[in-house]
């Protein structure tokens, strides 16, 4: 960031790009030119800031003013007011929902206060397309340190001692995995980066690759050195074009600088990285399926053992780690295993990135220390439930995770605790639900996803999940019996117990956890024929209160299917056998006479 006096950082993650951050950048640049500031101020496109709820985000450096919900039309004012006149543009500052005060520095915002950024350390700070900016923030220093002063055993030991565990979902100790692959005897080994992020709503890996691609390349090279591999492969879904482009740019720049390729830093260590595109199958996030997909085979898992560490890509020992896992590696090497292992809980060290979504005020990407409670995440960072509604549940771990409730809010988040509660860490999806969300519908939604994404190899996942979905559908239509609930539970347990890979072994979690935590809601559907959240259409009944209805006939006139009848000035009635539950009458009634039951 050399000669410039100040910088304007504009978030250029996928989300903010969709909100025309490119328009902001070009308008900022022309405004700078108009004000003859283009020599002094540089506009930088960065990776994701995380605070997607309030995007596009623009940050002024060095004074750290954080502008939110900026539009291209605001660019002129930002330059003129903030840079020329030295006054903050108040209307673009974040307003604290509690104090109603405007906050200009992000570190005072609830959303950022409790975050601890290791994996996301550079996202939103550097231009991901400029290797110099990465290097300026200690980039490639960890690799340099290892290549110059350590043996593979010593470097692996640091990762092992740090307690870093796989961030893709399984939580397997990363150092141990490296050690297994290192010990495997072979003429060729591979380092694979799993960037096949497939959970609905999750974008942790994408944001890291878009915002800080070099951190992953550096970590892969470190891993290559540790395990004795000279080839790295990044398996990334083709639906991530921006991440792919930034990766390509990063790979080219790193090659140009001699930071990957032959004889890195003159140490004789060779390591190069290639990109492999996936066609977008959720199951290809499973490491054996991912490897088969890279080999040009059908993307379906095989039974482990053999583990990829013994027999992976092309039958050679292969170490597969997730993007976020890799992003943690360089800081651990630089700051030491002790530093890292002091963050988090006894068995889960460091931080975890979550994609916070659903009914919270602050939707976005967050990185928090392990051990933080769900309450802090949802209410402090997430800013509580939207519209002042009541918190009902939070789905962690993506589509195969479980649904946790009020009673779980104060449990420290780590791998073991989440499993114990019937959910899991997963890759870090976190979807918050409020009182209007029906738990049967929620389970159905996730099953719909796993049914689509099952590879079809094993019978319980291929057929069982389909049947689970069908049974949930039956419940939401009010056509089930209590006996069905017992069968539903048995089926869910058998699928978990017998499926071949992690997908099927976890896909019934949304069903089981909602059955455990919201049993009364299931019974309401099955026994009373009611959906307490009012989401299952088939169970909803529109009713006119004869005491409140004045017979204005307005509802009668708007009903598209003529389900409402009644004489003028006398109470009307809805024939529920005709009613399609469109809600038009409810919306039109001025007397509050129509309600849903």
């Amino acid at each position, binding site marked *: 960031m050399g000669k410039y006096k100040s910088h304007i950082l504009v978030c250029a993650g996928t989300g903010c790009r969709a909100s025309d951050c490119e328009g902001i950048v070009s308008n900022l640049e022309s405004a700078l030119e108009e004000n003859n500031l283009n020599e002094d101020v540089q506009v930088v496109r960065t990776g994701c800031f995380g605070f997607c709820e309030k995007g596009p985000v623009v940050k002024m450096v060095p004074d750290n003013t954080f502008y939110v919900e900026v539009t291209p039309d605001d660019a002129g004012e930002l330059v003129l007011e903030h840079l020329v006149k030295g006054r903050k543009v108040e209307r673009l500052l974040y307003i604290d929902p509690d104090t109603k005060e405007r906050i200009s520095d992000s570190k005072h915002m609830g959303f950022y206060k409790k975050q601890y950024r290791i994996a996301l350390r550079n996202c939103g700070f550097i231009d991901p397309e400029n290797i110099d900016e990465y290097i300026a923030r200690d980039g490639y220093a960890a690799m340099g340190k290892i290549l110059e002063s350590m043996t593979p055993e010593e470097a692996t030991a640091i990762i092992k001692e740090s307690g870093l565990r796989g961030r893709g979902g399984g939580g397997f100790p990363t150092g141990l995995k490296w050690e297994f692959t290192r010990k495997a005897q072979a003429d060729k080994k591979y380092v694979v980066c799993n960037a096949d992020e497939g959970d609905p709503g999750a974008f942790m890996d994408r944001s890291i690759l878009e915002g800080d691609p070099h951190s992953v390349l550096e970590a892969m090279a470190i891993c290559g050195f540790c395990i004795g591999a000279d080839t790295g492969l990044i398996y990334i879904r083709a639906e991530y074009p921006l991440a792919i482009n930034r990766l390509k740019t990063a790979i080219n720049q790193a090659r140009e600088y001699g930071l990957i390729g032959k004889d890195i830093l003159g140490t004789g260590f060779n390591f190069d990285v290639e990109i492999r595109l996936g066609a977008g*199958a959720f199951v290809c996030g499973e490491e054996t399926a991912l490897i088969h997909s890279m080999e040009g085979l*059908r993307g*379906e898992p*095989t*039974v482990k*053992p053999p583990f990829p560490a013994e027999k992976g890509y092309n039958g050679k020992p292969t170490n597969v780690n997730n993007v976020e896992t890799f992003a943690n590696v360089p800081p651990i090497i630089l700051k030491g295993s002790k530093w890292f292992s002091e963050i988090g809980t006894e068995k889960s060290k460091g931080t975890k990135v979550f994609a916070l979504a659903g009914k919270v005020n602050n939707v976005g990407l967050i990185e928090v220390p392990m051990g933080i409670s769900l309450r802090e995440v949802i209410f402090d960072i997430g800013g509580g439930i939207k519209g002042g509604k009541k918190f009902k549940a939070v789905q962690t771990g993506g589509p195969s995770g479980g649904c946790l409730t009020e009673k779980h809010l104060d449990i420290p988040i780590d791998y073991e605790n989440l499993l114990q509660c019937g959910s899991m860490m997963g890759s870090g999806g976190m979807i918050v639900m409020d009182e209007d969300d029906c738990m049967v519908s929620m389970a159905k939604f996730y099953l719909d996803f796993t*049914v*689509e*994404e*099952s*590879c*079809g*190899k*094993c*019978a*319980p*996942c*291929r*057929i*069982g*999940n*389909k*049947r689970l979905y*069908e*049974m949930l559908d039956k419940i939401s239509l009010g056509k089930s019996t209590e006996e069905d609930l017992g*069968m539903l539970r*048995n*089926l869910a347990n*058998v699928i*978990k*117990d*017998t*499926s*071949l890979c992690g997908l099927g*072994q976890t896909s019934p979690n949304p069903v089981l956890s909602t059955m455990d935590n919201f049993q009364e809601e299931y019974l309401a559907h099955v026994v009373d024929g009611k959906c307490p959240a009012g989401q299952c259409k088939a169970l909803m009944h529109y009713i006119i209160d004869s005491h409140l209805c004045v017979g204005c006939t307005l509802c009668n006139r708007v009903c598209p299917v003529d389900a409402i009848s009644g004489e003028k000035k006398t109470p009307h009635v809805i024939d529920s056998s005709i009613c399609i539950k469109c809600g038009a009458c409810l919306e039109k009634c001025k007397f509050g006479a129509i309600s849903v039951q």
Partner: protein
Amino acid sequence: MDIVKLTIDDKPVVVERGTTLLEAAKSIGINIPTLCYMKLEDLNFENKPGGCRVCVVEVEGRRNLAPACKTECSEGMVVHSHTVRVINARRTVMELILSDHPAECLTCAKSGNCDLQSMAQKLGIRELHYKGEQSRYKGDKSPAIIREMDKCIMCRRCETACNDVQTVGVLSAINRGFESVVAPAFEMDLDKSSCTYCGQCVAVCPTAALTERDSTWKVVEAIVNPQKTVIVQTAPAVRAALGEAFGMEPGTLVTGKMVAALKKLGFDYVFDTDFAADLTIMEEGAEILDRLSRHLNGDKEVKLPILTSCCPGWVKFFEHHFPEMIDIPSTAKSPQQMFGAIAKSYFAQQLKKKREDLVVVSVMPCLAKKYECTREEFQVNGDPDVNLSISTRELANLIRNANLDFGKLTDEDFDHPLGESTGASVIFGTTGGVIEAAIRSAYEMFTEKKLEKVDFLELRGMEGIRKATVDFDGLPINIGIAHGLGNARKLLEDIKAGKSEFHAIEIMACPGGCIGGGGQPYHHGDVEILKKRQKAIYAEDAGKPIRKSHENPYIQKLYKEFLGKPLSDKSHELLHTHYFDRKSKIEVNH
């Protein structure tokens, strides 16, 4: 030996490291039920995707159930194969599989022979608790194989046969989840693909997802048609397996009963493909000698090794995969087609009938034969030399339909003149047999000496690729044998690379040769059945009074009266063929 000790159902067991729980349990008499799993020892066929999950067992300390077929034993393991948890899981999974399977057992081609049906019985499934939508796929009727994929249970055995064993690569899983099914790429029909119709997919399919195209009723229609003279020929491997369909011990030779049954079914003439096999030896043997002599005389143009050409699956395989080598195999037609050509010329003349009035039916251990007889080059003015080809299984069905008590039939003999054969022709039914038969004759033709020892044990066996050198009176002749198209591919790659050491190579598409053909009674994964059939074939050979093709008096008569000599113009017209480059024939519509 690296061993591990474990406990299965409270019984201690010691096995070699790498042994699966399934194998370990079997070694102490515990048969864990399996469905998708299939292993054919010695034939390079092992299907254990771990997909059906019927073989799950409980392993102490393990979170979920373990597939026994795929889980290796480890030291100190404590395994329970029939706890309530295991039985409930097995039954539930089985119910799930059945819930996505058409319940058409009463009319299904595989009823009584279906692995899914027997497993449902074994697990005592009496009710399906989980019903719902069933998957539906388009049907596919090729000349040889019918695909009815609604009945596919995704066991992937066909895929293993097609890809790993045969390296044909037509069948593989497509689509995801509930929609997933095994199909040719882009869901093209088999007849548009490079399928060889070897039928190994059918041979291993547990259900009726893959079956043969059934021609039994067409055969009946021909028999009852008074305008037609219906001639049947039976391939050597049929007699070694047909008895299994009637509960006889595998390896029981039923030649006489088979002939009796065919006569009772109403065929006008019951002949033997073996006769044509002897004829094949005459032509192919002559061709081998011709190429060999030219080679020995320094002819650089001559192509060696010569490859056998009696297997239609193999012919289609090289037409698709090695079209640049179509001038290497012998031009001799297969015995089925030689028989048809002779029946509709020489024998028609004897009967004083037009060829159109004859219907030639073949009974084959093979499904590719169904395709072979539809090939245009084997027709005269649209009239095929062989009209209908039925499998061993179809013949068994015909016999059952006709209410014949097969086991009690009195042996009868083939009709003359096309029913007489030698031991050499019988062994066409097993891997190594064709080349052994060829050597028996070629030796005498080449050396002009009598061959005393006719059994060439060095050419026999079940090894996928076998090599042997036969002494032609001082001249070493190098013989290669491959069965299974994957093994054939290896030998062909060597020829292509100019590394082949052989003078002659016998290739059979099916593992084991015709005894393991796609049209034989189902072996259900028991490779011993194939070995017993092979033994039966060699026993029939040993019992024959004449064991060299050129000594068959009816063959000698045929040449004298009709063909002249091997490789004559007449022979070329009737008994030889040519091959086609099929590489460009596969079109994919993007």
